[in-house]
């Protein structure tokens, strides 16, 4: 059955790729567009855009692919196949992490990793900035968002919604 092939494809891509949605895109494209011909290349690119406009993880785009090819059950199946591998692996990893987190080795390792996460996020901000801060309005939106979040108690929700409205008006 075609839908089982689809669900298995989604499942194993999510089980074997580390690094997130953008790492999965080439694999997904190879299977969905070039191998099985479930979507055209334009439809595939639109599915990425849909994954980006919706809140939450990019991989929700799999639900769109499922819906497009197999209807509502395809969408539901795609969501389960996408997140089931994570649920299994993270549960196992968390279990052992919590068991050993107070050992000196784990403590020392994480004391090194935690500051690296800050460096990692700072590098992400730079990369994203290069891609999306194209002109003065976009730079002002970014600077405004930063100032609001650091100096006030306003929720990120309003910053994001406000920026979306500004985008619709300005661009």
């Amino acid at each position, binding site marked *: 059955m075609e839908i089982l092939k689809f669900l298995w494809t989604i499942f194993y891509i999510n089980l074997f790729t580390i690094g997130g949605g953008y790492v999965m895109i080439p694999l997904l494209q190879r299977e969905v567009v070039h191998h099985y011909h479930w979507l055209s290349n334009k439809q595939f690119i639109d599915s990425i855009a849909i994954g980006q406009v919706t809140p939450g993880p990019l991989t929700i785009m799999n639900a769109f692919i499922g819906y497009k090819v197999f209807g509502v059950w395809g969408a539901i199946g795609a969501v389960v196949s996408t997140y089931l591998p*994570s649920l299994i692996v993270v549960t196992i990893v968390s279990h052992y992490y919590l068991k050993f987190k107070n050992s000196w080795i784990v403590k020392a390792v994480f004391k*090194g990793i935690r500051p690296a996460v800050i460096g990692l996020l700072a590098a992400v901000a730079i990369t994203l900035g290069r891609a999306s801060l194209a002109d003065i309005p976009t730079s002002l939106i970014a600077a405004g968002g930063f100032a609001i979040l650091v100096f006030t108690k306003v929720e990120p929700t309003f910053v994001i919604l406000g920026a979306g409205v500004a985008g619709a008006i300005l661009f």
Partner: protein
Amino acid sequence: MANTSVKNIFLVFLKIGAFAFGGVYSMLAFFERELVTKKKWLTHDEFAESVVMGQLTPGAPIVNTGLFIGYTLNKLKGALATVVGQVLPSFILVLIISYLYIKYQDIALLNAVLKGVGAAVVGLIASVVYNMSRKLLKEYKSIFIAIAAFLCLAVFKLNPIGLIVGAGVVGLLVFGGEQQNGNT
């Protein structure tokens, strides 16, 4: 931070899942604001650990970060509550968009909205860096690791997973002795 009810975990992640437009990094900013600053379910240390766990496990990192937080708060039930809450709003939205897409085949307005949101996400993630730096970078060794990590990624384009593993090794070498002697 244990024993937070499944219902409370679900509701917070439902809220994050519904409003964290702008992708994975916007969602991290929401996690920090909701779970660390407002609810105080996690410390900044634990938040950094959950980010790492998300990066090192297969699948969508942000979902995995949520799963790890859920598991630490309330075992398997907590983990399930996070993934369902996080994914449900966007799933419903995707169904609606898919229906409209198949009918009209056009997403031009969405692209304009995306451009504004994309810019705000840069500010959002910068605010997380700022908050975490103030909490976690208290000694010069940590500051040095953070700067080195930033340079490895931004200038030398190192793979993030390689970076995390490398930072772990550095941590073991630099902090191993003091941790073994029981200092924290």
